[in-house]
């Protein structure tokens, strides 16, 4: 089994892409779930404000998801740009 330096770099980049996306998905997943949970709680308290609360929840989740999206971008870069 011969292997060159370029091979090693590519292999490490692909494994790194997997780890980046995998580990990067943990935090946003939990955080977004927490935001959504608190929104459900608030809707339970004041069902008449459901529209406003859902919108706020979606915006909050979108912001907490940013780090997950950065992981996605980094993973895609590692897969398709690193040669």
């Amino acid at each position: 089994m011969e292997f060159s330096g370029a091979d090693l770099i590519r292999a490490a980049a692909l494994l790194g892409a997997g780890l980046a996306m995998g580990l990067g998905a943990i935090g946003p997943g939990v955080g977004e779930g927490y935001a959504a949970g608190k929104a459900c709680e608030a809707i339970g308290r004041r069902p008449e404000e459901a529209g406003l609360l859902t919108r706020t929840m979606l915006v909050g989740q979108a912001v907490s998801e940013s780090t997950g999206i950065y992981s996605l971008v980094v993973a895609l870069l590692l897969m398709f740009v690193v040669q």
Partner: protein
Amino acid sequence: MEELTKVWTWSLDVAGFHLVFNATTIVMTLTIMGLLIAFGWFATRQTGLVPNPFQVVAELFVETFWNLTKDALDEDMAKTYFPLICSLFMFLLLCNWIGIFPYMEEPTKDLNTTLGLGLMGFFIAHYAGIKTKGFAAYAKEYFQPVFFMMPLNVIGELAKVISISFRLYGNIMGGSIIILVVSHLVYGLLIPPFLYAFFGLFVGTVQAFVFTMLTLVYISVQVK
């Protein structure tokens, strides 16, 4: 599973540039625009007190998004940006839903579409910011709280474009990949329809709404 990597493209050499067009995306986007124009024509053809079905749907959209826009921006500003927000949502909704028909593909499955829409929202938001506050006040915000935070602020603004467009792209692309893979695995009739209902209709609606709301929020952050 070869369909995943197969893209139907047109390439063109113009003045030394090699341009590649994703034909499927362009055709589907034009189809959706045609459908929306036809919908608009039917909805406004005979407006009356007893509305026709198209008018009912159109009024639903207009009313919902008028209220949303009015909440986020103030009244006269909302008049400017409401048509953008409402038509953006209708366009995205139809884009995400069209994949459930055979031989149709979601234009939002292509990163070019979502990135283009994200950039559009970005430029509109910043144009709105400069127009309301003036360039000096707009530029000053980048040096808050201290002047050397400027690069981070700029990166933060650009990251919004990346996050908004990759969110839509990732969800729609992921949904269609899942449907494709599961269809290959089960060869059955029962599971894929449920997946279409979930990813095509439900996730498509939610993500179209999220994209629209975020564009609205980005505008409202800039003008306030």
